[in-house]
């Protein structure tokens, strides 16, 4: 493993306990799971809907299933995993609320990360340029983006209180560091750890 680990991945590596059971929803090419398998000896499964990404996962030796998470997770029992990860996946799902609820059902804890749509350069794009933002965290032009939902840290906190979801902790961050000061303005991305309120 000579390749440098991205900042979001390193944050997740810090969170996850050794030997945990992990479900990575929208696991992409399986990079995060591979890292977690190597560094934290996790028992991990990925779910991905893009066939090419499945091949990439199998190439890495990552266990992966070919499913559309928007259909829910009916084939998983309750509390099956220690952690369910939605690392920059939620904004691409059709039904984010349903996905979060399902994740909270099958996992004891859920890690959600997403691009913060209230990050100040994003505000600048809309407020001053009058354009749909194109930033490092939101790299796609409006007509080519896979993102279906744009939301902010504030939005997400409100969502959690509305849906009675417990926020265990929250990290705002940029490319390579954490942001503690006014995160809804200065954090490019956010990561939440969530739990069900029983």
């Amino acid at each position, binding site marked *: 493993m000579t390749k440098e680990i991205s900042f979001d991945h390193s944050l997740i590596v810090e969170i996850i306990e050794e030997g945990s059971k992990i479900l990575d929803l929208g696991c992409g090419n399986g990079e995060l799971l591979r890292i977690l398998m190597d560094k934290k000896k996790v*028992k991990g*499964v990925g779910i991905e809907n893009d*066939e090419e990404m*499945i*091949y990439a*996962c*199998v*190439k*890495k*030796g990552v*266990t*992966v*299933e*070919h*499913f559309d998470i928007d259909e829910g997770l009916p*084939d*998983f*029992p309750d509390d099956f995993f220690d952690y369910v990860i939605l690392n920059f996946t939620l904004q691409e799902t059709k039904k984010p609320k349903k996905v979060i609820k399902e994740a909270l059902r099958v996992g004891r804890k859920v890690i959600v990360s997403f691009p913060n749509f209230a990050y100040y350069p994003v505000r600048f794009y809309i407020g001053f340029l009058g354009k749909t933002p194109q930033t490092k965290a939101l790299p796609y032009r409006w007509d080519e983006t896979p993102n279906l939902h744009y939301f902010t840290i504030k939005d997400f906190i409100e969502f959690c209180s509305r849906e009675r979801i417990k926020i265990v902790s929250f990290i705002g961050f940029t490319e390579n560091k954490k942001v503690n000061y006014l995160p809804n303005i200065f954090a490019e991305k956010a990561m939440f750890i969530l739990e069900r309120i029983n």
Partner: protein
Amino acid sequence: MDQLLIEGVTGKDSPVGVTETKFYTFDGITLESGEKLSPITVAYETYGNLNENKDNAILICHALTGDAHVAGVSKEDGKLGWWDFMIGPGRAFDTDKYFVICSNVIGGCKGSTGPSSINPETGVPYGMSFPVVTIKDMVNVQKRLIDYLGIKRLFCVAGGSMGGMQVLQWTYSYPECVYTAIPIATTIRHTPQQIAFNEVGRRAIMSDPEWLGGDYYGKSFPASGLVVARMIGHITYMSDQSMKEKFGRKRKKSEKYGYDFEAEFEVEKYLKYRGETFVQRFDANSYLYITKAIDYFDLGENRELIKFYDSRDLKFLVISFSHDWLYPPYQSKEIVKILKYAWVDVTYCEISSTYGHDAFLIQNEEQENLVRDFLKNAWQQKGKR
């Protein structure tokens, strides 16, 4: 599709080279039905070399009408193996690394004991006095072959369709003797629709006056019945889309309809051709016995299976094809569901292909890469333990 489906292709080279079918005869087994089948001969082929630890063996299980000749060019008739593109040096089942075995199922007609074999007690072919065999029986016989070859644990068991059922049965009957399993385009239990198609095929054969109660050897052959059975089979192996792409509404003479009942549409001619070439190479009674074995296949209740597989040291790669309507992807997902409930390592991919059920027999990079990469990683992981 014909150029791609390598069934019965001659005059082609294979990196595997020329291969020869071998035979192993033993005292027999007691079948699931309670009847004893004795003696039993198994036709098999092997490719590559068994290593010193005897832990690099891969068993390939064939589908309904397959045989032991899975790769290379047959010494006997020059035909290319039915999954040649998957097997060989540097291929998905890499014969530079693995020792690949394929055997003909019992009940078949390609060298292993079946209804067309001579019953030693009577001196004439068994015909319908041959006992009904099951997928489990087929696997039990394969186990005897593996024992004979000195192999304690197979690195992998792989196969599509009925071959996939044998793969699943292996992991159930002999879980300690399998390390990885690759069931492709298959199911954990045969469904009413699948049984119905098989039954129509069987009825076509049995209602052929030439069938003679199965006692036609040396007298006649129920060719028209078997042709119909094969035609029905072929319809289920293709998809609506692949038929449209391949045949459309094309006809022999494109100007006017013939206003008669000759095979006029391309699709009619194709099915007729497929049926007629099939009867030259396959025994009608074997078709009855093998389809029956498939219909009986039911690995068990989901809840029991989950209990059985709980945390077993197995690795699965389950593959389905998007346009397969005979063994649709949802049936593969059912396998995946059971295994993951049991915390067994299972990877699942639905390959997009318009070919239908036969897609696994048609050269495609996706399947080759999945199998190659899966085996490569499993082999490395195995080495670390």
